[in-house]
């Protein structure tokens, strides 16, 4: 249950929640469902020399936000506007807030400046701002807020803000979830365990590497209270959630393959068996290289969800598709369109396939792999109808070359620009 209370809530000594509840939201950022709605949490910290406002709300909730703000302070008292994240769900009321408190000093991460410019456009020149990095502070007299730069959790700009005297971490989207409950605190609201993990898996998962770096910075603080920008305020056992972020940043597959081994996955589809034969010979070639664990999957027999976990942990991905009506087949695109929730950058990629006369599929897949920031070291194989014995040998050699590249055993190469022109 979530009633929109129109009163600010004091969550710590001289710290108020001035956020808004959005119980009716059912889809967030086009990528995740919100069966329980969400909240946009914003906060005010009171100090001897004025107050700091931390984040705002989605624009349509501005009125609620300003009304709460006005109940506990005046615009004149606002000394600092701290922007932990410039996504519109938190920065929606920033332009209006700055019009009302133009003297306030904005604190935003260095990577956030461009986004701030994009948000405020020409108005930015009317305001003062400071670009923050880890360790920088904002003083309110006897109270100090310090910044922790946590890039890519989940935008380039994201940062956390720490109130030292209360050991209170304003974490932005980090440790947040879409769960709407007016009881506000994690020990009072409904069961939001699923929402917490679901949020991580859709918002933070592509940035696991950065999550682990951020946890290295957050753990030593040992916060007593975590106030995220969505969902419950974590006062009961806050460190549990920090630990959770570490766990969730590990592989979802229970048993790891030997860490020294590289994993190469080969996915294919085949109507008449030609692309399937290519796949099998590529598999055989790749399997000759020690230290590379090669797996072969026919997409006709697979579901996407488990493949994503597998792909996340893999080092190399090959996709085989015949050309059908000038395109690769849909199951291949379905897999390639489902990788938004994981990191693919830097993985090795390749494509192959049989065709009849035009053979567009392979080059289209290769372009997609490059678009996913994968590296494509070998030109993919296209073969007309059923491959000949010689062509199957080529498949074998292709598999071998890719596995060598994966294992770091590729021999140095000298090429001429002309060799690369297609």
């Amino acid at each position, binding site marked *: 249950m979530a009633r929109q209370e129109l009163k600010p809530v004091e969550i710590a000594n001289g710290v108020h929640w001035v956020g808004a509840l959005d119980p009716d939201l059912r889809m967030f950022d086009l990528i995740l469902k919100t069966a329980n709605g969400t909240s946009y949490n914003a906060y005010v910290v009171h100090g001897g020399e004025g107050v700091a406002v931390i984040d705002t709300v989605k624009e349509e909730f501005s009125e609620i936000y300003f009304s709460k703000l006005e109940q506990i302070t005046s615009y004149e008292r606002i000394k600092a506007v701290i922007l932990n994240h410039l996504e519109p769900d938190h920065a929606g009321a920033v332009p209006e807030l700055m019009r009302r408190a133009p003297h306030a000093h904005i604190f935003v991460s*260095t*990577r956030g*400046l*461009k986004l701030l410019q994009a948000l405020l456009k020409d108005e930015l020149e009317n305001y003062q701002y400071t670009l923050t990095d880890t360790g920088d502070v904002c003083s309110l007299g006897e109270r100090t807020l310090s910044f922790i730069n946590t890039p890519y959790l989940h935008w380039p700009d994201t940062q956390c803000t720490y109130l030292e005297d209360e050991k209170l971490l304003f974490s932005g989207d980090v440790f947040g979830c879409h769960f709407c409950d007016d009881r506000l605190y994690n020990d009072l609201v409904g069961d939001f365990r699923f929402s917490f993990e679901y949020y991580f898996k859709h918002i933070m998962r592509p940035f696991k590497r950065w999550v682990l770096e951020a946890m290295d910075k957050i753990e030593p603080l040992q916060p007593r209270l975590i106030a995220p920008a969505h969902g419950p305020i974590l006062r009961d056992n806050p460190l549990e959630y920090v630990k959770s972020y570490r766990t969730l940043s590990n592989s979802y597959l229970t048993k790891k393959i030997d860490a020294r081994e590289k994993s190469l996955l080969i996915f294919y589809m085949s109507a008449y068996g030609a692309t399937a034969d290519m796949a099998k010979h590529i598999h055989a070639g790749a399997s000759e290289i020690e230290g590379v664990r090669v797996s072969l999957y026919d997409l006709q027999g697979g579901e996407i969800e488990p493949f994503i976990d597998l792909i996340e942990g893999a080092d190399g991905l090959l996709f085989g598709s015949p050309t059908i009506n000038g395109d690769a087949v849909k199951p291949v695109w379905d897999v390639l369109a489902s990788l938004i929730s994981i990191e693919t*950058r*830097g993985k*090795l990629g390749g494509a192959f396939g049989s065709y009849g006369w035009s053979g567009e599929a392979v080059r289209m897949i290769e372009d997609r792999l*490059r678009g996913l*920031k994968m*590296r*494509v*070291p*070998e030109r993919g194989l296209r073969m007309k109808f059923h491959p000949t014995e010689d062509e199957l040998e080529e498949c074998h050699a292709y598999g071998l070359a890719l596995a060598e*590249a994966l294992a770091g055993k*590729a*021999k*140095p*190469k*000298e*090429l*001429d*620009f002309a060799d*690369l022109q297609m």
Partner: protein
Amino acid sequence: MAKGKLTFQDIGVSVSVPAGTRVIEISEKVGAGIIYGCREGDCGTCLMTVVEGAEHLSEPTALEDRVLKENMAGKNMRCACQAQVADEGEIVIKPA
């Protein structure tokens, strides 16, 4: 035509290329580890480290200078979508 030699240290591939060629035109074809986002000098995704021969790359334009600064790039770093091979020297690069 003047040809420079561009070596991608991470994958051990060297390519001789005509002056004026952008690094991006080569690195994607050989499958080097440098990655791209906007491809037009705006985002800094393509930062690379120049291990040797920085003087054989074109001077950064104002556009590249800005994106390098915004991304707090070290002084031996360049944007692979912007930097061009300038002359016949040898250049060694790797992902940032």
